[in-house]
């Protein structure tokens, strides 16, 4: 690909443009791009909509970005609100704002400090969350590291190491209003440590069930330890 000869696309203020191949795409006002974009840097600072797919090296959404197709990039940073209506394929994914993905996510590293909603499956080598998240399908990662800060939901969680910790809310007043719990149907992993988790089934090798957990069934092959404040209806060694 010839990178040097490519031009830039800037939309400042109101405007719309067609897609294509660019070096840099910047949307500062309220801009709409009407077809697919292939570029090196994609920056959305205002309110931007792309009616197509985006393929880029580095994407950053500071304002309100909406992509009505797939997004494929090496690095994605969301500080504002981002919405991808189809699938997201990214190496490094960082969310400090709010991100909504209509399809599935495939990533190497996911780091969330805001809110993430994924309708489909979410796959990563490392999944680190200090926030709210909702995953409609399977959360599949080698290392799952969750600090519960709000309401977290995933249909299933699978991986090697799964750590779920509870983080105390900043202001005690909100405690009663916001439910800080991870809710899931099934957790499967080699090493599992849970807190504040509600799950129907937990299967693993080394399982530690911490405070405020509500687990229907625990199946373990190695060791199991259960906190006094946890409710485990049934457990069996297999």
């Amino acid at each position: 690909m010839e990178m040097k000869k490519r031009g830039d696309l800037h939309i400042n203020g109101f405007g719309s443009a067609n897609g294509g191949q660019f070096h840099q795409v910047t949307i500062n006002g309220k801009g709409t791009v009407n077809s697919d974009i292939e570029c090196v840097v994609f920056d959305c600072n205002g309110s931007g909509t792309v009616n197509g797919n985006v393929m880029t090296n580095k994407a950053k959404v500071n304002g309100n970005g909406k992509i009505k197709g797939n997004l494929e990039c090496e690095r994605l940073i969301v500080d504002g609100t981002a919405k991808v209506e189809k699938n997201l394929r990214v190496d490094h994914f960082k969310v400090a704002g709010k991100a909504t993905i209509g399809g599935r996510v495939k990533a190497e590293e996911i780091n969330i400090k805001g809110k993430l909603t994924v309708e489909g499956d979410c796959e990563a080598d490392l999944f680190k969350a200090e926030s709210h998240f909702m995953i409609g399908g399977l959360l599949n990662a080698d290392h799952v590291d969750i600090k519960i800060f709000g309401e977290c939901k995933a249909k299933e969680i699978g991986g090697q190491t799964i750590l779920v910790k509870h983080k105390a809310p900043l202001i005690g007043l909100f405690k009663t209003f916001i439910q800080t719990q991870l809710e899931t149907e099934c957790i499967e992993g080699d090493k599992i440590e849970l807190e504040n988790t509600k799950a129907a089934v937990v299967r693993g090798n080394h399982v530690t069930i911490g405070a405020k957990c509500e687990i229907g069934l625990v199946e373990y092959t190695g060791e199991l330890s259960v906190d006094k404040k946890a409710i485990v209806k049934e457990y069996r060694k297999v």
Partner: protein
Amino acid sequence: MSEELISKKDLLDMAGISYGQLYRWKRKDLIPEEWFIRKSTFTGQETFFPKEKILERIDKIQTMKENLSLDELADMFSPNVTELHLTKEELIKRNIVSSSVMDLYLENEKGSSHFDFSRILEVYVFEKLLQSGEINLDEGKMLLQVLKDHRGLINQKNGELVLTRKLGVSSCLLLINAEEVKFEQGTKIVVRLSLVKCMEEMKANLL
């Protein structure tokens, strides 16, 4: 389908792998999504796998992962590796195809001696079936024509090649993502070949 299924727990036990490995392989697309079959049991939802296929796949992964990285393995199992280009001589040297079959193929097709992935697959299938003695040359040509006409589909989908004979008349079908086919009585199924499997075999020979 009346395939024998195996539960995830039994699978891990039988293959001696951990949850981490299984999920990692799934993530790297070494195990296709369709093999994860969800069923509800008395303990809630459980995942099952087609027993034969998954055990064979895991065995392959385990024997090959020492030499290849997971990404390379994924390339091998995925049906859409299209970046492969080889010449006629290389194919013969690597035992993908014998020189006599290669000549027959080229004579029939009249293409160049540079092979891309689809053509390698065609010539491989041609070789495999002719050498096995299951089909004759005319049927082979018919088969090649079918493969050639649907190149685009074959690279992406789960294709299966079927050759039937009835009363001395043969015909060839290409099934795409089909679960089952039924034939009229008296039809003899000469060949039923999964193209994805062929691709895997072929890639194993190439690597």
